[in-house]
């Protein structure tokens, strides 16, 4: 049973550039959430996708956008990169039941983004 996978593993970008990160959920899961984890901090919720739509969003600017595909995989896009966007970006998958997330989220290994 494949767990959550993310690509790429590491990425180095220059300030002002744009980046796309990818995530494939755990088999059987239909919901994908994205988190930003700065060094030494807890993960911060960016947004959650279900049925190809953004279901919930955290306190992140519009430079952060996403997409979910019919096969439940997802992309996170960040435009106009800032130095402060350097972090580990985590994808987590879960299952929606009766219209709400059941809560059990499984995380991927993350993508380490460095903005120079």
């Amino acid at each position, binding site marked *: 049973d494949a767990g*959550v996978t993310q690509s790429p593993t590491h990425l180095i970008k220059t300030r002002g550039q744009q980046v796309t990160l990818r995530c494939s959920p755990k088999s059987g899961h239909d919901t994908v*959430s994205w*988190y930003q984890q700065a060094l*030494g*901090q*807890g*993960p*911060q*919720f960016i947004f*959650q996708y279900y049925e190809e739509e953004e279901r*919930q969003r*955290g*306190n992140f600017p519009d430079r952060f956008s996403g997409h979910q595909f019919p096969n439940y995989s997802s992309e996170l896009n960040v435009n106009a990169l800032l130095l402060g966007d350097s972090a580990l970006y*985590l994808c*987590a998958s879960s299952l929606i039941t009766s219209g*709400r*997330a059941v*809560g*059990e*989220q*499984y*995380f*991927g*290994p*993350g993508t380490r983004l460095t903005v120079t």
Partner: protein
Amino acid sequence: QQQVKQSPQSLIVQKGGISIINCAYENTAFDYFPWYQQFPGKGPALLIAIRPDVSEKKEGRFTISFNKSAKQFSLHIMDSQPGDSATYFCAAGDDMRFGAGTRLTVKP
């Protein structure tokens, strides 16, 4: 933004001892409280979780204690082992508000 406060920031325990990590939340609408374990370079892994209809849940050496009236919950690791050395995060709510993390070191 932070609605989950976690303590302590770091914890050193001798092998065989009990590790205790505490979390407090603000939003009474939260109804799901997981604990995650994270090793360096890895994503968080779900350890154990509880819903507010029970006051305690035990899985092996890991126990969650939940106090709804105090809006607090804690993780107890019994017989702590060096392999338990990691960063532990509590979280709450459907959109998973995470605590700041506790770095646990278990000395042999």
